[in-house]
């Protein structure tokens, strides 16, 4: 009896699903995935190219790391300086800008730091630091985290000027928003993650619109010269699709609660 049970389980375990068509792996940022755009684009890619794109949803730091190790065929991230370094070191063949969305400041509805009256992103951060209001940072070396740090620097607040009010949680966008919701803190989020976030609680969108908050996404195929096994052909095919008019219509037409999230700007 036990033997038959074991045999059955082994057969079930070894019989892995056979895939039809082509399969490639792409590392994307949590903010892209949380936006829900992937669920719109992937079935279309599957239909048009017969290409199954498997997404690894990680922070930008890890996405670049996966590309460096050759564990994925392409990456779609949003941290220009890190991306350019990635290409300069020869790990990516090139960097292709696809679209952008924007970052927004989220905080408790009663707004103790008065972010509603801020005029620029720097002004908003200075208000938070001035009021010593609780601020939740991603702290995970992601694109959003790097953006946040560059905004603090631009606001003239050095990292050693952070006090107890600055909480670095080392988590993805959704988890960090959960934390902010729990402790009534301010947080920098991409608009898509915020709109799709299900546990808003007392949080509200308090400041947005400063051009420095724009968030450019770029597509980087992994260099086959560094890693011979990467599916460069498929990565190229996907890039062709991502910059096509078809992708443009889908990306520009994607809305949550009547708001457009992404602006297609591939050339």
């Amino acid at each position, binding site marked *: *009896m*036990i033997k038959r*049970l*074991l045999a059955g*389980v*082994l057969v*079930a*375990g*070894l019989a*892995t699903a056979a895939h039809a068509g082509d399969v490639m*792996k792409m590392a994307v940022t*949590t903010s892209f995935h*949380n936006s829900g755009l992937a669920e719109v684009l992937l079935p279309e890619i599957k239909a048009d190219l017969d290409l*199954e794109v*498997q*997404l*690894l*949803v*990680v922070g930008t730091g890890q996405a670049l790391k996966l590309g*460096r*190790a*050759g*564990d994925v065929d392409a990456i779609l991230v949003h941290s220009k300086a890190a991306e350019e370094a990635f290409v300069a070191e020869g790990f990516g063949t090139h960097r292709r800008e696809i679209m952008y969305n924007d970052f927004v400041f989220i905080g408790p509805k009663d707004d103790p730091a008065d972010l509603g009256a801020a005029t620029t992103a720097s002004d908003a951060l200075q208000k938070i630091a001035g009021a010593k209001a609780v601020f939740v940072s991603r702290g995970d070396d992601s694109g959003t985290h790097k953006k946040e740090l560059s905004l603090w620097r631009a606001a003239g607040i050095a990292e050693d000027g952070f006090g107890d009010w600055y909480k670095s949680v080392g*988590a*993805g*966008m*959704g*988890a960090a*928003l*959960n934390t902010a*919701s729990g402790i009534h803190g301010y947080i920098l989020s991409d608009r898509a993650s915020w709109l*799709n*976030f*299900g*546990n*808003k609680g007392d949080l509200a969108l308090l400041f947005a619109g400063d051009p420095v908050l724009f968030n450019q996404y770029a597509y980087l195929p992994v260099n086959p010269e560094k*890693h011979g*096994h990467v599916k460069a052909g498929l990565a190229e095919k996907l890039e062709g699709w991502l910059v096509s008019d078809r992708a443009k219509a889908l990306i520009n037409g994607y809305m949550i609660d009547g708001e457009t999230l992404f602006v297609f700007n591939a050339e």
Partner: protein
Amino acid sequence: MTDLWSGLAQAFWLVVTLDAELVEISARSLQVSLTALVIASLIAMPLAALLAVRRFRWRRGVIAILNALMGLPPVVVGLVVYVMLSRSGPLGVLGLLFTPAAMIIAQIIIVVPLIASIAHQSLRDLWQEYHDLLISMNVSQWQKMKTLLWDARRALLTASLAGFGRAIGEVGAIMIVGGNIDHATRVLTTAIALETGKGDFALALALGFVLIGLAIAVNLAIHWLSRTEREGRW
């Protein structure tokens, strides 16, 4: 609290309507954890029997290490397996990273010490009883191990079920080596982590209830199939 109730309700509807995605990730959870469990048992049980009957120099040391490894942090196992299987790692040519096979490997490493330690405890007690008899019958070491394993099969079942419990509920390692890829390596626990990240607590809880239900169902099925707790047996 409202999340709990809506989670329960959502779990109920997901199960009743046999939601396609739920069925897929539940089946994958079972496939990964049961495969890992079978292979881990095939490694751990002979190892436990060997440790019970054989006296060798480092025996105590091996047992102590095995016991200590019961608490192996899954996230560390995941990271080590990840580094080994990465394309730039020593086993990269196999191309196993981000596949169910990688998840199975990680879970085997996690549950082998647990199953071996629990199995060894009961085999050692049994060995005290059988020692004189088996020695006087002058049987081979292999026969001693076989006898012990067969006569302790109920206790070994408990060891296996403990291993299954650890495997099916584990998220740290399989998240790292599997990557939580939709339709490829997403299982119940990683889906729960994902939905929590999206702030959709109700769906996350619903998946959690399904996971608990699944663990109970598997335990009951194994008990039923192996006819424990029946009259004339214990």
